């Protein structure tokens, strides 16, 4: 547990001192969402209708932006060799790195989302559910992304390859995330969607660190 916390603390410290990455992710999120009113016009009805979808799709893209840095820096400077040789199970350390990644990218997205929802005229009934759904959905994105990031280590043009690998796997989160918000706006029950999002989070939590750890062992060979 101490080792798990130590790797979170280290990655947070690295992110804070280098700064740019998580700021860039939030800026990308904000700017892309702001483009939509310009693109589709400022009619309240249109924006309100697409708000949930726009927020989720941009959040997916934004969280993917920083994924290729998740293991890349450790891979390049040799830290990854030592991490895979740690006496602590590698999947636990992967989970620590994913937790740090979520805290530096997923959490800022979560905080920015309600502000942008106002901009897109999202119905007030959807706000709370949007936050809850993103709270359940964004960690899943980080977990799935970690597997992709571990798989493309060492590949040239890894960033592009990573999006091709990971985006299709993001679709279920997108579907249920958007439908939860839409249902809330239309006054329907959202329990089912939130339960499915939780189920996806739990299965990702069980499978992804293990899969990413195996991919990392391949990468350092």
């Amino acid at each position: 547990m101490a080792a798990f916390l130590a790797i979170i603390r280290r990655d947070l410290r690295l992110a804070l001192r280098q700064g740019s990455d998580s700021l860039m992710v939030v800026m990308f999120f904000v700017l892309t969402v702001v483009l939509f009113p310009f693109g589709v016009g400022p009619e309240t009805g249109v924006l309100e209708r697409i708000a949930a979808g726009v927020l989720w799709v941009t959040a997916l893209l934004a969280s993917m932006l920083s994924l290729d840095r998740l293991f890349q820096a450790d891979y390049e400077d040799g830290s990854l060799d030592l991490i895979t040789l740690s006496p602590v199970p590698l999947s636990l350390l992967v989970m620590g790195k994913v937790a740090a990644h979520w805290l530096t990218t997923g959490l800022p997205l979560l905080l920015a989302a309600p502000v942008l929802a106002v901009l897109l005229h999202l119905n007030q009934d959807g706000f709370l559910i949007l936050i809850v759904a993103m709270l359940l959905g964004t960690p899943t994105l980080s977990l799935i992304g970690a597997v992709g990031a571990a798989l493309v280590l060492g590949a040239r043009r890894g960033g592009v390859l990573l999006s091709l690998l990971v985006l299709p796997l993001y679709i279920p989160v997108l579907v249920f995330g958007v439908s939860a918000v839409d249902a809330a706006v239309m006054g329907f029950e959202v329990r089912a969607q939130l339960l499915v999002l939780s189920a996806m989070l739990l299965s990702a939590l069980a499978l992804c660190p293990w899969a990413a750890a195996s991919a990392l062992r391949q990468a350092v060979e």
Partner: protein
Amino acid sequence: MTDTLIPPAVPPAAAAPLFEGRGLTCIRGDRVVFTDLSFSLAPGQALLLLGPNGSGKSSLLRLMAGLLHPARGDVLWDDESIFSDREGHGARARYIGHQDAIKPVLTVRENIAFWVRQWQPERSAAQADAQVEAAVARFEMARLLDVPGKMLSAGQKRRTNLSRLFAAPAPLWLLDEPTTALDRASVAVLEQAIAAHRAAGGMVVLSTHIDVALPGAQEFHMDRFAPRNRYDWDDETDGAED
């Protein structure tokens, strides 16, 4: 060739051998780097790897660390394959590779303290910090403790990296050209540290291009284990994993 035990190339010392490699074959890409390499290392012993670039020194060290899988053969600690207990092997082996694994934005203290927390999670933060300070003092790095990694010279980075060996002791040291970028004084410190480590029952495997004083060490000239021709191993790959 059958899968029976291949006798170690070097006869084991009187003490029971602890760390062994049996009939190791290493393949990188489509190239056979070395075949049929066996070693055996008892407490207090050292193994010196010599040979030209590309002769497999680094590959052998990575095999010993458990980063690479052998195409044939196995690496054993007390008769148990290191690949069946990776975490256990991680606790007893310290691998120093070509790269220094120093984060540019973390200070020397933070860089080493992180690894102490990995290797000895049961220690308190204060204990870990004391261990870090004692470790860097051996390489006369104490005044650089709070300097970020990006300000260090190549030699200072290497010394920081080597300080990890002292910060969290472990019986097996795997050092891949540890003297790179070190000045003479630091090489002497390293030699003394290795001698003290061996006197305390530790084991050292070291690859080098320059003279490092390792009294009584076994020497492996890696070109001896190079395949005689590249088709030598063709009929032996059936047992290959990976």
